[in-house]
């Protein structure tokens, strides 16, 4: 952690023992510049970077690999990117998964081997992968680890009882007999959202069309298509007003990210992507929070992340955003909560040429629903885009916003602010 003692110690080392904090003189501009620069570097040393990211799967089904083999594949790629040996170098492993998506109770039992984490510091969160990034971030900040690994995956193709599992997430007495598989909650939320924010059905169809088309330029997308707004509006209802095409379809895949302290990061990769800020939040479990037109969890998580990153006006700070769009309307709702777009697509605020373009990757509507891995999928897409932009020396893309939501019936989500400078 950066603190007064640390800066003092650093100044001693740089300018000699006669210098004492509180009674030195500023003699020249060069001196102050060096001071500011060095303190800036010190502050940067307090940061956490993503130094490697690997993935596998990204397909409606992955029959040729068991979940373990899928994870081994993604982990191998992530470690290779930053030359990490998980058996020696990694101080903490964090896996994000839920029992019933695996079909195994206490599913963390099956986490270590394929990550190289046997007899190592590994833990599981029953959370989204982006919460895992927050946990790894805290592990690095608290000194538990200087290199930390985050893993999350989906084998939804193996879950034949997806609607039963979703039903099982509902409160048993008041909600389960009424709300079927929970999808009516999304539909009710959508109706209330459209009502409160005066969003037209066409606006939501615009999101579908944009994301499905964006996905055509992404190798990882399974569900990309050239869909017009008009076609999107003809899709059948799952639960009125929610249409089939507005729901992210299930997909398999695994993402593994390697995080490191600033000190380590610079020697591990030429392209560190800095986590400038991170936040997470849960609104209430209550029914009104489940169908609320406002995404309070995203708003509060963003507030936390923006505070750490020093973001004052997100609408002009970010170059692009990867935002949860499990249901098409959620993209608009989340963009509003994150402060990166005024409501209503008719204003073009979430289109490709918007001030902060959203889901250029194609979003979940193209990539699919990867349950607990969703946050890491958003992170992967943002990291790849930042790195590609840097490689191509295109100046435009340096700061990204990443956001995730845990899905119905939760009101929980996380936000990360990424930067390459």
């Amino acid at each position, binding site marked *: 952690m950066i603190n007064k003692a640390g800066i003092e110690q650093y100044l001693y080392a740089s300018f000699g023992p006669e210098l004492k904090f509180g009674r030195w003189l500023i003699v020249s501009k060069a001196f102050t510049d060096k001071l500011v620069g060095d303190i800036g570097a010190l502050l940067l040393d307090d940061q956490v970077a993503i130094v490697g990211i690997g993935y596998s799967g990204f397909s409606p089904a992955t029959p040729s690999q068991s979940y373990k083999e899928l994870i081994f594949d993604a982990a191998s790629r992530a470690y290779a990117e930053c030359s990490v040996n998980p058996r020696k170098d990694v101080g903490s492993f964090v896996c994000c998964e839920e029992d019933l998506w695996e079909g195994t109770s206490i599913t963390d039992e099956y986490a270590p081997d394929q990550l190289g984490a046997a007899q190592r510091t590994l833990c599981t969160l029953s959370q989204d992968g982006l919460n895992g990034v927050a946990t790894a971030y805290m592990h690095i900040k608290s000194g538990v680890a200087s290199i930390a690994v985050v893993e999350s995956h989906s084998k939804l193709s193996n879950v034949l009882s997806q609607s039963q599992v979703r039903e099982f997430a509902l409160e048993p007495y008041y909600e389960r007999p*009424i709300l079927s598989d929970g999808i009516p909650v999304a539909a009710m939320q959508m109706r209330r959202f459209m009502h409160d924010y005066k969003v037209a059905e066409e606006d939501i169809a615009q999101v579908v069309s944009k994301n499905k088309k964006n996905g055509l330029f992404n190798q990882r997308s399974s569900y990309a298509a050239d869909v017009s707004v008009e076609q999107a509006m003809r899709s059948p209802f*799952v639960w009125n007003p929610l249409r089939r095409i507005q729901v992210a379809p299930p997909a398999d895949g695994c993402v593994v990210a390697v995080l490191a302290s600033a000190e380590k990061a610079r020697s591990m990769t030429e392209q560190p992507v800095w986590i400038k800020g991170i936040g997470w939040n849960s609104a209430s479990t209550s029914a009104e929070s489940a169908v609320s037109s406002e995404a309070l969890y995203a708003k509060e998580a963003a507030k936390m992340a923006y505070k750490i990153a020093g973001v004052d006006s997100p609408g002009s700070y970010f170059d692009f955003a990867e935002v949860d769009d499990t249901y098409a309307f959620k993209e608009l709702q989340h963009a509003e909560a994150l402060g990166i777009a005024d409501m209503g697509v008719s204003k073009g605020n979430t289109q490709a040429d918007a001030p902060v373009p959203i889901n250029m990757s194609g979003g979940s509507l193209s990539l699919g629903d990867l349950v607990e891995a969703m946050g890491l999928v958003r992170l992967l897409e943002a990291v790849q885009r930042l790195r590609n932009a840097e490689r191509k020396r295109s100046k435009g893309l340096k700061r990204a916003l990443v956001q995730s939501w845990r899905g119905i019936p939760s009101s929980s989500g996380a936000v990360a602010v990424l930067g390459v400078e």
Partner: protein
Amino acid sequence: MEYNPLFDGTYHLRPWVDSLPLEYKYSLGVAGKTFSEGLKQGKILASKCSRCNESRIPPSIYCVGCFGYSDGYVQVSETGTLYSFASRGDVVVAAVEFKGVKGLLFHRLAVSDRNKLEIGAPVRPVFVQQAIRKGDITDIDHFELAV
């Protein structure tokens, strides 16, 4: 021999299918038990927190706002309003709010004229006959439009 151990490329891609049947007996809890007793008498009960001057549905032994113990129950008004709804085929699912009460109650909505369905419409519960009520949420058969 049908099985060749030396051939690395032999993929026996096959799924392993199995089920996890689970059976539960959920306790309704302290507040849920009171709510369920209220249903038998045709009442919908909310819990109240006098510090926050707030009542909440479904009732809870704690106040979500101040995280202290709730201190009693109140009956909600006979008519609520439609906060939102969703439909599939003949089934309409509604989120109902009651005046002066935080929270929502989810239930089925029976409606003859879909055109009258709109956010903010007044609705009221229709209970099943007292004799067959058992304290379940389904003691309310459905909600109907109160216009």
